[in-house]
């Protein structure tokens, strides 16, 4: 389960509309990328889906249940990691199970499982400042998964990483996603990233952001980044996005 539906969602910020009439859905187990020019309200949509802010208009549902207040059935992965600096790798991953009051052995078991899943074995006792950017984001992903979410919300999670690490992390994310099969809503401004990762790409307009076009990426995984099919989709998405970027720059 994990079907996210947005119905005519609008949200104002400081008097101007950040996002208007957003209408799309993430099907159960689907990987959707939200792509748009900067300032179009991608992050706003993500925060609304997480229940961290509420929409001014419109409604949002997870598995048919309207989201009111913080959505505790989703896991959020933040761009700047947002790890608890005073907790070790293991402590960060255990945070969710711990605050839910799970017994200690259960917390241990869950953290063990996700530490292994994201490839952090041997790094359990290190603090975030002792980890590289890629490692930190592995912790972020494991922490979100450890909370057993129906939906994973990712806000440009690899934006702060160098190109090499970024490619590795994208492949890692797909490997984890295929194992756990949680729906993903992934915000990015990189067309390459979206084409490599997504089942569907939602392209947004410039501010106020709304859905401009939705692309199906019907390519088998693992995808070859430079395959002709990928290039065709990349071209179409870029063209759709290009006019919006010009609008945003104006």
């Amino acid at each position, binding site marked *: 389960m994990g079907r996210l539906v947005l119905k005519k969602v609008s949200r104002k910020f400081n008097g101007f509309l950040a996002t208007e009439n957003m209408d799309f859905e993430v099907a159960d187990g689907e990987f959707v990328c939200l792509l748009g020019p900067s300032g179009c309200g991608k992050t706003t949509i993500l925060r609304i889906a997480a229940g961290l802010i509420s929409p001014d208009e419109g409604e949002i549902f997870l598995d048919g249940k309207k989201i009111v207040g913080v959505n505790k059935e*989703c896991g959020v992965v933040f761009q700047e990691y947002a790890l608890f600096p005073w907790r070790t790798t293991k402590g960060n991953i255990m945070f969710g199970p711990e605050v839910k009051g799970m017994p200690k052995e259960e917390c241990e078991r869950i953290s063990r499982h996700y530490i292994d899943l994201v490839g952090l074995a041997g790094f359990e006792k290190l*603090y975030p*400042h002792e980890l590289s950017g890629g490692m930190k984001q592995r912790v972020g992903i494991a922490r979100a998964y450890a909370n057993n979410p129906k939906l994973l919300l990712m806000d440009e999670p690899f934006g702060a990483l160098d190109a090499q690490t970024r490619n590795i992390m994208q492949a890692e994310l797909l490997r984890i996603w295929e194992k756990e099969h949680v729906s993903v809503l992934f915000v990015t401004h990189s067309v390459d990233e979206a084409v490599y990762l997504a089942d569907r790409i939602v392209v947004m307009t410039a501010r106020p952001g709304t859905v401009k076009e939705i692309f199906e990426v019907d390519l088998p995984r693992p995808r070859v980044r430079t395959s002709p099919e990928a290039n065709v989709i990349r071209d179409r998405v870029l063209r759709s996005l290009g006019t919006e970027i010009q609008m945003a720059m104006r």
Partner: protein
Amino acid sequence: MKIDSERKGLAINILSLFCFLLLWHALVMMARNDIFNIPFMRLRDIPTPIETWYALLGSMFTKTYGPALTYGIADHTRASLLRVVEGGIIAFIVGVPVGIGVGYSKLLGNILNPIIEIVRNMPPMAWIPLAIFILVAGGSIFIVFIGMVFPIILNTVHGVKSTDSRLIDAAKTLGASESKIVTLVVIPSAFPSIMTGLRIGLGVGWMAIVAAEMVIRSPVGLGYFIWNMGDLGRYAEMVAGMIVIGVIGYVMNISILVLQKRFIRWVD
């Protein structure tokens, strides 16, 4: 390379301290031999470093002169430290929760801020008359409390307010309740600031206790000791007491810094 420059630094530190003592000695000796004196200052009455050192050794421990008992610097130090510790514990128990409340809750901030802002601008010394005339018992502990509680409150507020909002968001989406957010996110995040508040507070508390003991005239305490020695014209003992005060303040500051480093390993 690094060790070399560190060693060099330490050597300069020691040399500088030695030069200071030398200058002190020279000034006093020149005044005593009428070679040089600063007008209107009785430099000749200042004890030399060596006299101070012997005074320190001589007055370190309690002595009896016939029927009279004289407390040693060790006793005075113990008494002053005890007051600072007692006042400090109370200030910590009061200051940290108040700081967390004011920093975290807008309402509580609005209620308490005007009071805090006025009261914290009354120096601890301004409270001494109140302590003497009204409180009587525990007056000096109260002065320490006043000196320490505001640095602790203000630094706790600062720590709470500078909690990264993304960490709070992360905790919320991970299912943390409001109270768990405070105990598991806000307090750990504010902890380094709270320690800084404690460190600054100890400095203020230590200054306040010395002043309070002079005025309150507690029969034992370093402030009382240096005032009394000055009164009796035993300047070497007086200066020895002053140096003990400085060294203890320095040691307290360093100890908190060391504790902070040891317990807060997660700060880069």
